[in-house]
Every structure is written in structure tokens, then in C-alpha cells.
């Protein structure tokens, strides 16, 4: 690629600074459309709802189920005499 070395670096720097100045003068002329705010927050609400649902059916549901199993297990271990009674009855027969 041809590189014009006859132009001093200073001119290159000057041009860059000039372009930088002009580009940076550009200011927002239009605000974001009002509807954008509603759309952004609607999307966030939907994402949050889906996360809550996923949490409900995975983490919370599983947790509740295992707690129920634990409770049932506890109830059975609180009444250990039930089964031997049945065994006695069979023996008698």
C-alpha cells in the first residue's frame, strides 16, 4: 500500500484532531422514542416473570417436594409400633 511520506506527520495529526473536533460536536438531536421505555420495561417484566416461573417449578417445587417427603418420613419414624402390630396379628393367624 502506498504511503505518502512527503506529507509530514504533523499534518496527519492536525487532520485527526480536526475530524475528532467535528465528530465530537455532533450532539443528539432526537430523544429516544417514548414508546421505547415501555417496551424495555415490558421486556424486563416478561423476563422476570419467566425467571420466577422457572424458579417456582424447579427450585421451589423440588424444595417443597423434598420437605414433604421428609415430613412423611418423620411421621413414619414417630410411629414405629404400627408395623410390628400387624406382624403380631399375622403370627397369631
Amino acid at each position: 500500500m502506498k504511503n505518502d511520506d512527503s506529507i509530514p506527520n504533523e499534518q496527519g495529526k492536525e487532520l485527526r484532531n480536526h475530524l475528532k473536533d467535528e465528530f465530537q460536536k455532533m450532539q443528539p438531536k432526537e430523544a429516544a422514542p417514548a414508546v421505547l421505555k415501555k417496551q424495555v420495561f415490558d421486556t424486563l417484566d416478561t423476563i422476570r416473570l419467566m425467571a420466577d416461573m422457572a424458579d417456582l417449578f424447579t427450585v421451589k417445587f423440588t424444595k417443597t417436594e423434598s420437605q414433604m417427603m421428609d415430613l412423611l418420613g418423620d411421621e413414619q419414624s414417630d410411629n414405629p409400633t404400627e408395623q410390628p402390630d400387624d406382624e403380631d396379628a399375622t403370627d397369631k393367624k
Partner: protein
Amino acid sequence: MVFLQSTTTEFEPLDDQNLVAAILTEDNRERQRLMQEVLYDRYADKVFYKCLSIVKDHETAKDLAHDILVKMFLKLKDFKGTSPFYGWLFAIAYNHCINFVNKQQRLRTEDFDTHGYDIAEDEIEKENLELKELRLEKLEELLGELTESERLILLLRYQDDLAVKDIAEALDIGESAVKMRLKRSRDRLAELFKMNSAHEK
């Protein structure tokens, strides 16, 4: 008991870093939403304008800004507060816009020969000296005539003052390719400027 209703004005004095921290730690969803609105109001116009300056199409800019702002809220916990929030957000915005432009124009491939274009960063603006006459009003007009990829690279370089190395990183291409694209984009801007000036004369 009387509850004082919160409004966004309550959170407006907070700086970005404290506002983000407050959003992340707030349990009350209503208050959290108000804080999010304050953050949205601070940056939505800037994000939208950045997108519009790259794509030059209202609807596309709106869609891009939507995705960027949603991403901003979803990634808030990744903001470490070590750099300004503006810079962090604009990194997200750039990546999103760059991906969009890449998808549109398949820019990721080295679409022209960059072999041998390995010159010092200070020297890349040596050419197109006629652009020194280019002023804001004309610049805005001519930018609209460039392609999205040409606009993007010029904005990264001159509006956001990124070094060639940083642009290369953002675009995931080599520094030589960045220099070549900058040159091509500037050449095209200069050509349009010349044509426009000749037409006006």
C-alpha cells in the same frame, strides 16, 4: 399508618455507581423499578443516538437501543464500578451494534487485502488532507451517505476517540485491517466531500 410513596426524584441525586448498587440490593420491586427508571432516563437518549448514528434508520436504531438497554439491566451485577458507568454501557452498546453490522454486511471476514498496510498509528491520517475543510453540518450530511460499517469505524475513531488497537479488539480484526478500513472510509468521505463541493460551486 401512612406510607410515603416513593418517586424517581428520591433517587435522582444518586451517582451512577450508587444507583446501580441500590438497584442490585433493593428488595422492594416498586422501589427497584423507580431506580431503574432513573438509570434509563439518564442513558436512553445517548444509547438511542449512538445506534441512530450508526444505522441511520429510526426503527432499527429503536430495536438496537431496546436490546442494549435490556442487556444493561440484566448485566448490572457485572458492573464493578472500577470504570465510569458510561464507558461500561457503551462497551455493551458497541458490541451489540458491531454484531448487528457484522451480521448485516458479513464484515467479520477480511473483505479486502490488508497485506502491507502496516504503518504507524500517527501516520494513518496523512492522506485526505482536504477533509480539514469539512465542517459539522456537511459532515452530518455526508455520514448519512456512507455505509453502516464505514460510519461505525469513523465514529469509533473520531467521535469516541478509540485507538486503532482498541478498535481492532472491539471489531475482532487485526490492526492492519482497522487501518485499511479507516483509510477506505475516510477516502470515501473525502470523495463525497469533493463531489459535494464541486456540485455546490
